[in-house]
């Protein structure tokens, strides 16, 4: 156990900040990744490959391991088994991965402005003893522009609505110059206009060569907005085009009986059980 501590300490403190990117390697490659918590297995034997510029929606019920998967990819959590490669190297050395957390995880009473938070994304570009320079301020400005929050730069984060908070985090990820963005349920609790704003921004990102993985609950939205979807429930049940992945069989496997199919004239309606929160998914 002491050896684990020493290893982790050494790795955390002395890790190379900028792991070189292998140009011929895919942006993200997972091989047989498994994660075990004390309560049981959370991820089982996940393998997939993500290329530059891909945009993937990850869906699955609560407890499916979506957050855990993102943390493993971001290098925050170590898998118990398997290999994670970002541009050919372990995630630990990269600062080009942005993990956008669920909004409930943040202390919104913290004394900071929107600009302060977005500037935090630049910290890896600044060494110790250095303060924000002009280029950092420029990057923050551009990021805020991209998400239409320029007018909010000086506002306290405690005054932001849910949608604004989410856009601020995306701006932070942009300021970080992230190549891979992992958004953890960013659309939760947002009304439709706010959701559309976010999805619009993500659309623009596609043109910027930023790879995006986003987890969500709304199956129809996932199918409509994304060319690639991933169905996850501890195991990787499907990865590919929506019509390939969202089959009745796979959906049943994922949601294990908490989904009912109602045959209609043209469409099949998949309706979630009342037992699972937020599972009102309408599909097809």
């Amino acid at each position, binding site marked *: 156990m002491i050896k684990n501590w020493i290893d982790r300490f050494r790795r*955390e403190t002395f890790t190379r900040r900028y792991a070189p990117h292998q140009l011929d390697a895919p942006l993200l490659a997972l091989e047989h990744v498994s994660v075990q918590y004390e309560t049981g297995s959370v991820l089982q034997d996940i393998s997939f490959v993500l290329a530059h510029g891909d945009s993937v929606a990850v869906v699955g019920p609560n407890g499916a391991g979506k957050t855990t998967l993102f943390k493993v990819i971001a290098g*925050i959590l170590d898998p118990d088994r398997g290999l994670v490669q970002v541009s050919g190297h372990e995630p630990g050395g990269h600062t080009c991965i942005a993990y956008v*957390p669920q909004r409930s995880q943040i202390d919104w009473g*913290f*004394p*900071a402005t929107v600009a302060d938070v977005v500037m935090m994304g630049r*910290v*890896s570009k600044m060494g110790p003893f250095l303060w924000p320079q002009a280029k950092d301020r420029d990057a923050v400005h551009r990021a805020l522009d991209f998400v239409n929050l320029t007018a909010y730069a000086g506002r306290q984060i405690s005054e932001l609505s849910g949608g604004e908070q989410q856009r601020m985090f995306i701006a932070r990820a942009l300021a970080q110059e992230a190549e891979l963005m992992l958004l953890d349920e960013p659309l939760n609790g947002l009304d439709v206009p706010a959701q559309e704003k976010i999805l619009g921004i993500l659309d623009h990102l596609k043109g910027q060569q930023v790879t995006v993985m986003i987890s969500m609950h709304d199956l129809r939205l996932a199918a409509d907005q994304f060319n690639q979807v991933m169905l996850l429930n501890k195991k990787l049940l499907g990865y590919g085009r929506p019509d390939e992945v969202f089959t009745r069989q796979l959906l049943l496997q994922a949601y294990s009986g908490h989904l009912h199919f109602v045959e209609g004239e043209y469409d099949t309606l998949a309706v979630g059980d009342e037992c699972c929160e937020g599972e009102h998914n309408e599909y097809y």
Partner: protein
Amino acid sequence: MNIIELLQAPLRYPFMIRGLSAAVLTGIVCAVVGVYVVVRGMAFLGDALAHSILPGVAVGYLVTGGAQEPMFWWGTGTAVLVSLIIGGVSKGARIKQDTAIGIIFAGMFALGIAIISTVKSYTVDLTHFLFGDVLGVSGNQLIIIAVFSGLILLLVAAFYKEFLVLTFDPTLAATLRIPSRAFESLQLVLIALAIAVSFQAVGVALMVAMLVTPAAAAYLLTKRLPVMMALAAAIASASGVIGLYFSYYINVASGPAIVLTATSLFLIAWGYAAIKKRFALQGDKDS
């Protein structure tokens, strides 16, 4: 005696100037570090650390026979050690952090009192340990206080960004590959050093007030972190000076006088913030 004379009278004496300097320096350091304590909700940990110094100082007394400076080093060493232990314990143990800190706190404090009670020819006043004795600061001690204060403030300035990220969003810190464990430990060590430096002025029992009260007052007045630190430092310095003037003219121990002043300033800030809010609400209603 008019007001000017009242203010000037103590300044003719070197020991008062030393005392005022010590009070101001320790006030600033505790306030700046205290901003982290308040924002992260670590007041209990701060209190525990302060009380945990006692056995270290007591052992230092036993070993050196009561010399002031060795006791300071023993106190500092103990504080740093305990801060790292608490940091380690609260990371992965099965007991909640709250409980772990409580256990360590009470145990260490009791150990200190026990050691002190076994010393038969005890010549250092326990009340000075508990409540401070800023009048007794010697020239050498002031130099040590100044050096350590400078060091602490330098480290806070140097790693300001890293501490900011770590405090606000530890996950971001992890993705930016900021060595979180090391910086968490550093933050705890800075708190420990601030406590060790302020021990002489305020004593163990009231240390938590120096960490928390000025920062809490500043939090009511501003929501920008750098401004909060500057304001807290100003409030703490004012408390130190005013408190010392009080304890000069009235026979009150320095620690309580300073803390009572800081608390009064907090209440004023609170009142101001409440009134401001009331007017803002009125304004909204009218418009």
